[in-house]
């Protein structure tokens, strides 16, 4: 029994040594091309898949050698991926942290090895800001604010109460918290805007529909739906239609993301306004990687280029929408 265990351990250790040796052997990054180690969260949504594709394609066209690793939603996978990137002596490491905390140790290892780190899409809560070079991603609070600002303009002339229902993202997630806050900030100070019901739709279509169905029955008057992402808005549209109302007309809808299906609904007049949350970070990321690798200074926080869509703009943009 013991013998077997030890044998297995020995094989494991040998395997690891071999791997390390391989990692050391393939170290050719010092020469021509810049090597980038990228650790992705996973493939949990269409948004994420588009994000991955963008990174892979723009690395190729920018002539950057990409070592890509999928963490399948697990922090320990990401940490071991980053360690192996350090082993392989890549020029730059970039990753989308699964969760906010617990990164200090591995980031220190990268710093000691003199490898700059770029955070994409999501941030970390490390107190020591020198552990990473920069953050590239969206500002979720701003997204919520944009949605709220559109609403105040759309209903500027309304005199009565404007009853708003809100479909929140996954409880406790950064985009849900921030989009809620930004929206609330934007409509604060105007008493006519009332959020009469707010529940989580877990960022999914099914829950968005189910919760909206309940809202439609429990609220006597709904003027506006604010959904934290397109998928929940799409589910809610079905609920509104089943209630015999016209989405986009009887109930105005504003949401965040601008994925293809959402844009289609916007073009069809079922959604009134979408604030973009851009997954196509690739080109901006590659620019940053080149600058960082060349030792240039970069700002510590870079927001992705994001726009907003109304129905006319959606019709224009739809044919070119990749995700």
């Amino acid at each position, binding site marked *: 029994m013991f013998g077997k265990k030890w044998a297995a351990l020995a094989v494991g250790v040998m395997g690891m040594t071999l791997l390390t040796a391989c990692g050391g052997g393939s170290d050719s990054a010092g020469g021509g091309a810049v090597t980038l180690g990228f650790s992705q969260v996973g*493939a*949990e*949504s*269409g948004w*994420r*898949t588009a994000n991955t594709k963008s990174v892979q394609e723009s690395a190729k066209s920018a002539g950057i050698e990409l070592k890509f690793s999928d963490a399948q939603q697990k922090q320990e996978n990401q940490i071991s991926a980053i360690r192996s990137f350090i082993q392989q002596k890549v020029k730059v490491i970039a990753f989308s942290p699964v969760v906010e905390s617990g990164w200090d140790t591995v980031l220190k290892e990268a710093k000691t090895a003199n490898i700059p780190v770029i955070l994409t899409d999501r941030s970390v809560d490390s107190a020591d800001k020198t552990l990473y070079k920069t953050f590239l991603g969206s500002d979720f609070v701003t997204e919520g604010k944009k949605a709220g600002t559109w609403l105040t303009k759309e209903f500027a002339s309304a005199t009565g109460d404007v009853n708003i229902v809100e479909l*929140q993202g996954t*409880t406790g997630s950064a985009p849900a918290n921030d989009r809620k806050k930004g929206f609330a900030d934007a409509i604060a100070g105007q008493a006519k805007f009332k959020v009469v*019901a707010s*529940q*989580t739709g*877990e960022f*999914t*279509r*099914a*829950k968005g*529909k*189910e*919760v909206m*169905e*309940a*809202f439609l*029955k*429990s609220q006597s008057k709904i003027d506006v739906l604010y959904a934290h992402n397109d*998928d929940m808005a*799409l*589910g809610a549209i*079905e609920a509104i239609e*089943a*209630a*015999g109302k016209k989405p986009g007309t009887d109930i105005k809808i504003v949401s965040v993301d601008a994925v293809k*299906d959402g844009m289609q609904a916007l073009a069809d007049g079922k959604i009134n306004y979408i604030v973009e949350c851009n997954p196509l970070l690739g080109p901006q990321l590659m620019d940053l990687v080149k600058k960082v690798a060349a030792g240039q200074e970069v700002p510590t926080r870079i927001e992705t280029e994001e726009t907003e869509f109304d129905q006319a703009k959606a019709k224009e943009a739809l044919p070119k929408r990749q995700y």
Partner: protein
Amino acid sequence: MTGHRLFWPIAALVALLLVDLAVKPSFFSVELRDGHLYGSLVDILRLGAPLILVGIGMTLVVATRGIDLSVGSVVAISGALACLHLSGLGDQNSVGGTLVAVAMALGLCLALGAWNGFLVAVLGIQPIIATLILMVAGRGIAQLITDGQIITITSGPFRAIGSGYLLTLPLSILIALVVFVLTSVLVRRSALGLLIEAVGGNPEASRLSGLRSGRLIWLVYVFGGLCAGVAGLMISANTSGADANHAGLWIELDAILALTIGGTQLTGGRFSLGGTVIGALLIQTLTTTVYTLGIPDTATLLVKAMVVLLVCLVQSPAFRAKVRRRRKSPPPAPADRPVKVEVSA
């Protein structure tokens, strides 16, 4: 009357509905809108249908002393395959194409059920482990089918499965009702139910007494796969899209909860299909209640857990006996009792 085994689940369901009625008097209002019934109660039936189906399948599996953790993944695979086929059709509204999509999805689910049955009945792997394999791998398969994206479809006939109406009633609850009636008749009017209970009660004894328990076990897993497949069609049809990541997520746990509430024993040998239906409706009523009453997100899970705990407590014979004994025990009772009542209220 309290002796009937469905008394407590039904009492809990009625109590929950009464709470809704008290807080939101409009909860019970059902009206005719666009030629179909419209109201919270109709929602509960329509949205509860997939869980009822998965629950019925799970009940028979549990009756043989098994468990099927893979149903959630099978739900995702079923919806994914049907939507993939539909999205490739030139005319998504064609009834023929929809039927092909449904047949393909259900065929695959039968095969997946047979795989589970093979692992459990032929290879003798413990059910919880055998079905855990498909639970983990199945979601991956569904993601492969959809390529990680949500496949959106526009097929009218397919959508009807999840959100259509027949004779003013939701089609999904009618499908669930048909499955429930057919299954009940089949297991209770024939010896099938008895044989399943015998296998669950004591597999070895029933095998020695000449029962082909292997075949029966195989059969219940195949049936469980089929039920999950139909539920998967309903869930994806309800939102006109296949979401491989979220469709049917944790539905296996809800199904196990539903049948437990309904009085089926996880140790096998005794089951109640009617109880499972009541349990599933109770769970859906709870969810709809949370949304209707506007209970904050952060408290939702806790509220649900409390209700479930309460239902399980009143159902537990040991707990009821304890409460009764305490009430009967004479000495401190008179002074003590009013205080206790106040605290619990």
